[in-house]
């Protein structure tokens, strides 16, 4: 456990926490991007170069943007008071999450695991070969899924015929 790991973990956790706790949704989304960058750094740190870059490309380049667009598209009105949220709902949620966290950390710590020492490298070529052989079927399915999701998203979000534009 190195210094860099701790720094990266801090970035991730703080980013994530910020992402779910800011009241300004734009800030939330930006914090999410920060957390994602942190995750990418973690992956780089762990040696999964390809995953790291993909993470940035997908999450920072695409997902955050989509989230931001969604936020801007769904703002009821500028400076309108937020929806009143009953406090007990929030507390229950945090409590349950905390409970789960406790249990998980306990479970992790309670499990004896040995870490492999030394580098593990996976090249893009290896990934490509795996995708084309062992994981060919999943790749196709994911391709289909993405296409379906794309079309689905377009159809869902496109203004329906006859609907007046807001």
């Amino acid at each position, binding site marked *: 456990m190195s210094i860099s790991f701790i720094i990266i973990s801090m970035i991730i956790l703080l980013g994530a926490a910020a992402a779910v706790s800011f009241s300004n949704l*734009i800030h939330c989304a930006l914090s999410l991007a920060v957390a994602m960058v942190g995750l990418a750094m973690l992956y780089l740190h762990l040696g999964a170069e390809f995953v790291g*870059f*993909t993470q*940035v*490309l997908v999450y920072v*380049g695409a997902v*955050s943007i989509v989230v*931001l667009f969604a936020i801007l598209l769904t703002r009821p009105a500028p400076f309108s008071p937020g929806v009143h949220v009953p406090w007990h709902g929030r507390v229950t949620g945090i409590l349950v999450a905390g409970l789960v966290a406790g249990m998980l950390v306990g479970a992790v710590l309670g499990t004896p695991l040995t870490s492999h020492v030394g580098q593990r490298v996976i090249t*893009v*070529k290896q990934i490509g070969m795996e995708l084309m052989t062992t994981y060919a079927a999943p790749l196709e399915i994911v391709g289909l899924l993405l296409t379906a999701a794309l079309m689905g998203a377009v159809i869902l979000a496109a203004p329906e015929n006859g609907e007046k534009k807001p």
Partner: protein
Amino acid sequence: MNELFSEWVRRAVETLSEMLRNPDQAPVVGKAFIVSVFPEFLQGVVGAFISIAALISVFGGLFALLTLMERKGLGRIQNRPGPNRVGPFGILQPVADGLKMLTKEDIVPFRADAFLHFIAPVILVMMSLLTLAVIPYGRNMAPIELDSALLFFFAAGACTELAVFLAGWASRNKYSLLGAMRAIAQMISYELPLLLASFSAVLLVGSLSLVSIVDSQGGFMLGVLPKWNVLTPWGFVGFIIFMIGAFAESNRSPFDLPEAESELIAGHLTEYSGFKYALFFMAEYIGMLAISGLAVTLFLGGWHAPVPFLGWVPSYCWFFAKLLTLACFFIWVRATLPRLRADQLMALAWKCLIPLSFINLGVTVFWHYSAAWSFAMALPARWGIAFLALAVPYTFLARQLGTKKTFARRTYRFAE
């Protein structure tokens, strides 16, 4: 101590002579020498710093040069002299501009999100500079030789979109926000053809590493024609698509809608001034250079010489020559083409470029498999089929783009 020093001098002299003897590898040798001076544990950091310093200085200089070239070039094209007051023929104009930018007042709007307003240009420049890190500038001269360099390039490029959004949103100005949204829509749309076009090269080489992509373009067909990707049917079309995408990606004319002064009072740049504005400016130019560098790398043979007998010219010279050619092309296009309308912009990307680049991928595959053809007219046949496969869809796609979209008749309301 003395011995150590004389040893150092001897090696310095050796290095220098080596650099002179082999100018092609001079920067590499030089860097290796400098790094070797430092103790072991510092060498990595120092190496990185040397690369960074070289990059920033070279591209900073290029940035300055390019602004000047752009203003002079535009001037000449529009039949006016361009800047000609500062220094001989105005060559010191960039210095004057820089000074002006640095000394102007930095204005932050009252309701703006000050932190984000500040951080946006920083991220933008940072990411633009990051993209420069993976391009091979010459033989053995990629600052970082990443296995997935192309992915890195696009990942870093993707982050600039976020920065643009930040700039637009943080300014608290509706024109800024509109500009940012436009910019993002445009950049996302054009990232697809850009990626797809570059993947045709990736497909054929079988690697995301820019170094190996450049390596694969070495050599000559029939002894004269360089084996650049742009000289294959898929490479040619890919290059064109890539360049269109590059224009859009760097928000350059004719795709400069997000920054259109006349429509959006400069879009997300509205509320920026002084040094921050200079940063945006710099980011745009560096982005342009970086993407041109990528185009050179992917399609124009990187640092390879175009003719066999000019192989002795140092590789990086070729690279920068091609880079500057493309940059001049950017300027030329800016001076020539009018700006697109927003719907035309989107239609071009989604209805024409993306299908075409998919077809181009198919053609690339065909090209790869048909490489095994061995009959007499194989090459013309391959060219013919590839050309047909691209030209026929192109005519259809282009025709369907050309359909006149009928708008409702506009009514104008005048002040009474």
